[in-house]
């Protein structure tokens, strides 16, 4: 139903969403409305309340429930287009907006207490670890930013003057944020300020404030009440993203109050002056950045989001962080010394001797592991069979660059430049861009920095570009395709990049290339920018390398032509895969189909890499495919020159690479390419993982004599730790549970003072035998109601056995040998780990190498 009402276009619809127009669909709707200059309003015909479609807050407060009839009115310069887009959105997209969001998966284990601590009756509270690590310190509580209720009591003297005061405050706050945004280096911070600005400019927020003042309330009281109203609405959304916005509302309200009353309503920056654990309901990124990181040992948050800005920041800064710790502020009192175990996912709130002993051992284990197989933070990654692979970082902000270089990035494989374009209502100037790029070039100290020219359009809408809303933005007007229309922007960026090239090894990369013509055109643009700089006498690197992202499949079929024009290539696997398989990875219904391990996709990648190498050119990979440790055998097998990964991943990726063999990788890749089903592919990857550590059954690192473990729990932990230190397991918790599971059936103690704990588990990377000889015999549980004391513990851990496994034969031989008294006597008599390992190897006829 379409009609012209007065001067506006109008259509009506019935809300089919079972939970009504709650925050998530509302945010989509507002996004759609904000693509147009036209004003658009929604009227809930049941209640008569009208909301601006451009305000999420307003749409939510219109309280549209399931079955409500609503009218939408559109009025303005581009009303035809806006009307069509909104109607289409409401009819086709909105009903699907209720699909449950993909859950936020915490990075690490969430809460099983190790047996030792369980049996010691330790006090603790669980949470989800989002940045792994262990921190110990005194608790400092951040009381949050709750709005001061004292202001509610103020009575208004004069509504018009209160209104004027409020308007002044709003304008001042907006101006201040705008000011900050203009002088910003860090894009992480910019994103936060951008969100604040959106709230300060929200039309219905302003309307609510005005409404309260009109009712005779003071400006301050109105701010508090309007704030609480919206915060309450947002907090109850089931959308993570929208709940985060409650923080922004709070932040803006506090700034308004400060503006009006000149008092600092924000909790003052916390002074930390000893090792501290900061406990808070939640944290604004500004607060986190205000903390002294020398003393900040861990963060404990009640709020459960793993994607809040502060959590993302904490992760990139490597601060051990637990989220979702219920009533943390109530149960973890200030001043108390606690340990945050953000490896296992809990806070120990009382440091008993048992806890101290556990973490003392834990620290030693972590240090030994580091010594035995250090995370590699410098030098190139070299595979076990001697192939070098450059590991670069993907970055888009100053903070990420810092972490990347600290972590030993060999370069920046992808520097995204969109952030500067998205954080303001005007494009960044050449000077602003030059500042960013030259800083990156200098920070890289001679390492390669690949700067990608702006990829705007598509899903990245920019207010100052008049880009049309598209039915299919990913197949639309984005990347290189908009450069002809926005030549001025492109020239400014190219000049900024070229100028920065005088300060380091900069390379230019262009996104969304599908044809040779686009490349030639882009190269002309670079020539033009160079001429411009030459005229002005500004220096730059003349032969700056030029390359493209390979993300449109067509580019992969004209490589002979492209190679003759370009210096390098980078595989943007996210888009390449989505275009190749015609499956949107963000669409839960087809996520399954969007699979970088599809044999067709792997064949395509292989073909691309081979062809580029035949032409003698360089090819890297900067998509998410590169960041997964599991995929590394494949990437090595592909023969890439570089992979570019998230900055925090670099040391782990380099370490894993050093254990891989390029030859094995090539075999795995070929097997996968020939695979006919998904399961086979997964199995191949699993096997590659195990192959990665073609380790012998036994090594001297797995033998420990003179153990001081005092009970079964400690001994088990020590065994698992030894496996971890020797690189036999990455998942201690799972290995330990597997061993205990077996003990639950009945104790693995046997007479003669031996115990043979064992398990089948994928938690070990290789079949392994561990030996622990105790200084003092310990109880190993009851065997047929009688306690068994053991002195020698031989642990067997095998992966799910393939048939006719040689390792199993060795293990059965070992078990049979334990029946042999001479063998046992010898084991008990051996004095050092090396002799023990050698003797066992002889007896079992196995090699230690």
């Amino acid at each position: 139903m379409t009609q012209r009402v007065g001067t506006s276009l109008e259509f009506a619809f019935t809300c089919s969403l079972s939970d009504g127009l709650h925050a998530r669909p509302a945010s989509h709707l507002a996004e759609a409305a904000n693509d147009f200059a036209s004003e658009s309003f929604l009227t809930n015909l049941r209640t008569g309340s009208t909301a601006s479609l451009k305000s999420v807050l307003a749409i939510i407060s219109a309280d549209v429930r399931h079955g409500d009839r609503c009218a939408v009115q559109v009025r303005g310069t581009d009303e035809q287009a806006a009307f069509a887009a909104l109607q289409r959105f409401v009819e086709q997209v909105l009903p699907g907006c209720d699909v449950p969001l993909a859950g936020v998966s915490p990075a690490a284990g969430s809460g099983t207490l190790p047996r030792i601590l369980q049996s010691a009756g330790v006090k603790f509270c669980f949470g989800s670890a989002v940045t792994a690590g262990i921190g110990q310190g005194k608790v400092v509580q951040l009381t949050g930013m709750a709005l001061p209720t004292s202001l509610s009591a103020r009575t208004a003297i004069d509504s018009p003057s209160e209104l004027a005061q409020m308007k002044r405050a709003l304008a001042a706050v907006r101006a201040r944020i705008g000011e900050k945004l203009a002088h910003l280096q860090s894009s992480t911070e910019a994103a936060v300020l951008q969100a604040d600005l959106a709230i300060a400019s929200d039309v219905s927020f302003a309307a609510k404030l005005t409404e309260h003042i009109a009712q005779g309330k003071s400006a301050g009281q109105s701010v508090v009440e309007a704030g609480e109203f919206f915060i309450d609405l947002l907090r109850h959304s089931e959308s993570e993203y929208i709940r985060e916005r409650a923080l922004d509302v709070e932040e803006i309200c506090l700034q308004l109050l400060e503006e009006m009353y000149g008092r600092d309503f924000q909790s003052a920056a916390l002074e930390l002056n000893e090792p501290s654990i900061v406990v808070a309901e939640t944290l604004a990124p500004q607060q986190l950045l205000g903390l002294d990181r020398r003393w900040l040992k861990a963060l404990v948050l009640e709020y459960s989001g793993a994607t809040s800005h502060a959590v993302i920041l904490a992760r990139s800064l490597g601060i051990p962080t637990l989220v979702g710790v219920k009533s943390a502020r109530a149960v973890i009192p200030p001043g108390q010394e606690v340990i945050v175990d953000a490896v296992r996912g809990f806070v120990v709130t009382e440091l008993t001797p048992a806890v101290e002993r556990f973490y003392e051992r834990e620290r030693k284990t972590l240090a030994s592991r580091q010594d035995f197989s250090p995370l590699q933070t410098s030098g190139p990654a070299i595979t076990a069979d001697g192939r070098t692979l450059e590991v670069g970082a993907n970055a888009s902000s100053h903070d990420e660059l810092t972490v990347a270089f600290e972590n030993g990035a060999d370069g920046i494989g992808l520097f995204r430049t969109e952030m500067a374009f998205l954080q303001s209502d005007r494009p960044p100037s050449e000077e602003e861009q030059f500042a960013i790029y030259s800083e990156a070039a200098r920070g890289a100290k001679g390492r390669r920095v690949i700067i990608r020219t702006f990829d705007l359009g598509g899903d990245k809408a920019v207010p100052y570009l008049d880009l049309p809303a598209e039915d299919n933005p990913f197949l639309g007007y984005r990347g290189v395709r908009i450069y002809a229309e926005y030549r001025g922007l492109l020239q400014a960026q190219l000049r900024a990049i070229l100028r920065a090239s005088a300060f380091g090894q900069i390379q230019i990369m262009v996104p969304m290339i599908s044809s040779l013509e686009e490349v030639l055109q882009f190269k002309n643009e670079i020539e033009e920018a160079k001429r411009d700089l030459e005229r002005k006498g500004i220096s730059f690197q003349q032969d700056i390398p030029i390359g493209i992202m390979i993300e449109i499949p067509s580019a992969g079929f004209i490589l002979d032509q492209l190679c003759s024009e370009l210096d390098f290539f980078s595989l943007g696997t996210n888009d390449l895969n989505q275009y190749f398989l015609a499956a949107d990875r963000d669409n839960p219904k087809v996520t399954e189909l969007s699979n970088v391990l599809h044999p067709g996709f792997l064949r395509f990648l292989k073909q691309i890499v081979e062809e580029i190498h035949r032409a003698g050119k360089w090819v890297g990979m900067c998509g998410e495919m590169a960041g997964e440790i599991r995929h590394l055998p494949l990437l090595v097998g592909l023969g890439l020159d570089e992979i570019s990964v998230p900055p925090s991943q670099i040391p782990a990726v380099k370490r894993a690479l050093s254990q891989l063999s390029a030859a094995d990788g090539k075999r795995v890749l070929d097997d996968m390419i020939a695979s006919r089903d998904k399961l086979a592919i997964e199995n191949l990857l699993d096997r590659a993982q195990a192959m990665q550590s073609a380790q012998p059954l036994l090594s001297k690192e797995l033998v420990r004599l003179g153990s001081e473990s005092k009970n079964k729990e400690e001994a088990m932990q020590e065994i698992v730790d030894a496996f971890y230190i020797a690189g036999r397991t990455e998942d201690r918790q799972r290995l330990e549970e597997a061993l205990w599971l077996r003990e639950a059936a009945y104790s693995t103690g046997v007479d003669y003072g031996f115990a043979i704990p064992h398990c089948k588990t994928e938690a070990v990377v290789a079949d392994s035998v561990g030996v622990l000889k105790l200084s003092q015999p310990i109880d190993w549980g009851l065997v047929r109601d009688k306690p068994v004391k053991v002195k020698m513990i031989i642990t067997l851990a095998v992966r799910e056995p393939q048939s006719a496994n040689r390792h199993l034969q060795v293990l059965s031989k070992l078990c049979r040998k334990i029946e042999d008294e001479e063998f046992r006597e010898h084991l008990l008599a051996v004095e050092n780990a090396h002799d023990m390992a050698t003797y066992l190897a002889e007896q079992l006829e196995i090699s230690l190498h």
Partner: protein
Amino acid sequence: MKIVAVTACPTGIAHTYMAAARLEKVAKTLGHDIKVETQGAMGIENKLTENDIRQAQIAIFAVDIAVEERERFNGVKVIQVPLQEALKDPHSIFAKIQR
């Protein structure tokens, strides 16, 4: 006495083999002739043949899980004990046989 035996435990990587070794050792000291089949992670090993079973006066199952190919033992006198018993007190198993 001619004895056949089967050992089997759920994981099948340790106790199955220890128990087999233990039964063999004790049987030997008692002067019995024993053949022990292991049913472990590597499948059936040292498999008892039809002939082995026919000649045996008794079969010992020291098992915590079901014996595979149980039908082979139809018509044979079977003593079944938890596997643990073979490790903890093998003599008592043989004592039961004597009775």
